[in-house]
């Protein structure tokens, strides 16, 4: 199914690369300095430090799409307390790193979700929570929904369940952190 107005699900390249812009002027006499910097950042302990910072400050943006938000609420609440993983829901798009798509995505909401995704700063991650966000789930034959979040945004982790238990969401966060820890600094987002 095609969402009207949505862009393709391709990840946008890292246009805003501070190191690259800095190295541009220098590249006249050092050749490919930016490549050198990238290599240094990605191999040395710098990469570990950057990834460590990214792993433990996953701030999800405040966007709820459907009923899975009840379990997201329970997960951020007292018993499960997502904040101990560094997950602190925040209203500002520019400061957030993560979208947790909480359930069914209607056609009306899909456009807004893509808009929100495009406004977020790199690197950004997406967790698709619930069967609905994976494949349409219970409402797969409905006339008004999009069957799966991957149709309009790239998804990092899927959480099955209808709704997934808070423990499952915690596991998804840990998996995402593991993914960040293993990935290269310039290839995230």
């Amino acid at each position: 199914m095609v969402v009207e107005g949505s862009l393709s699900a391709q990840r946008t390249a890292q246009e805003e690369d501070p190191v690259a812009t800095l190295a541009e002027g220098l590249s006249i006499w050092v050749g490919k300095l930016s490549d050198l910097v990238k290599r240094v950042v990605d191999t040395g302990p710098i990469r570990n430090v950057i990834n460590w910072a990214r792993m433990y400050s996953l701030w999800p943006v405040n966007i709820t799409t459907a009923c899975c938000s009840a379990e997201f609420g329970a997960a951020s609440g007292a018993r499960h307390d997502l904040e101990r993983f560094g997950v602190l829901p925040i209203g500002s798009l520019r400061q957030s790193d993560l979208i947790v798509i909480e359930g069914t995505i209607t056609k009306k909401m899909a456009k807004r979700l893509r808009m929100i995704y495009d406004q977020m700063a790199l690197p950004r991650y997406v967790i698709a929570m619930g069967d609905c966000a994976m494949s349409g789930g219970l409402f797969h034959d409905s006339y008004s929904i999009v069957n799966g979040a991957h149709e309009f945004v790239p998804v990092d982790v899927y959480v099955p369940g209808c709704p997934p238990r808070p423990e499952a969401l915690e596991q998804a966060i840990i998996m995402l952190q593991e993914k960040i820890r293993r990935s290269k600094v310039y290839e995230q987002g």
Partner: protein
Amino acid sequence: MSAPPKPVPLTTVESTETSDSGAQTLTLSVGPQHSGSGHMRLIVEVDGDIIVNVAPDPGYVHRGIEKIIELRNIIKSIPVIERPSIIDSSNLNHAWVRSIEEIQGVEVPRRGQYLRTLLNEMNRIMSHLYWLSIYGVFLGHTTMFMWPLGDRELFIDMAEKLTGARITYSYLVPGGVRRDLPPGFAEEAVKRTEYFEKRLKEYDRIFFNNPLFTSRAKGIGVLSKEKAIELGCTGPTLRGSGVDADLRKDEPYAAYPELDFEVSTRPDGDSFSRAMVHMDEMRESCKIIRQIVKKIPAGPIRRKAPIVLPRGVAYGRVESARGECSFYLIGEGGDKPYRARYITGSYRNMAAIPAVLLGNRLADMPTAWWSIDYWPVEADR
């Protein structure tokens, strides 16, 4: 209320229109990405910081449930029916099975009726606690976010023991319920509800008697008795405006006629009254739960009901956490309904959103708006 403004493009701020008084007004689009609005959008027109016009823009969670019901048989529809208000799932489920039983002419055994009522009341508490925790977020009161969600787990654990699921139970089926009480449930229920009632006193101390809340809620978002009736409000919103209307008393169903409880009403119709109605209802629900586990009769929990909807028309309604939830069901002899009309409490209370917001300050919007307990998923269905 004047005519709703034209929908503005998403997340755009315009300062073009001129209101009747000649002053410049500003149109704001609040939501759907907004910490205080969830899965819906409010188009708010402000003059200075006074709200002069509000148009709700629902439909972000419209999943076509009425159509889906026509495609599934009446048992497979149960999970779909629960989804609109997942935190209050068994009450919605109850409206569905009641309308089916009315067409089928099936009598539910008394023990089954009691078990239904038990889960309904537990759900009411859970739903109100969820509402309260979000209220805490809206007012920037983190303790009030954490406490209710923590105490909600008390009841979630009980419901999980009873039904096997945390929040989506599918526990009520035509003819009765799926499972009997697990051993030791009665003592557990008494212990937990008594503990919870003590906690409610602490809620009063830290939140409801707190100037932080009272000064922002008393006299804010007033919905008069006449207006509430005129708009067709229901549930705590209606009772918060001083109307004594509760289907559990007015049209008793399940085990309610045999239970002793009171309907809470507050005369003022402001955000504070509506919040207090929620608190009173949680106390009453605790009482009802204790009565049920004491009085529950022995016997079968389920009577055999066919997976066939005979030709006929039925209207089943219950008092859910957010007000009256009803089904108008037409059967044509197959295992699927010909048509099902599904009305929920939030859907009916949507009309109250402009009424409570108009004339208030923009900063009071979260308090007034969320006191209606409007759950967009339930309203859009």
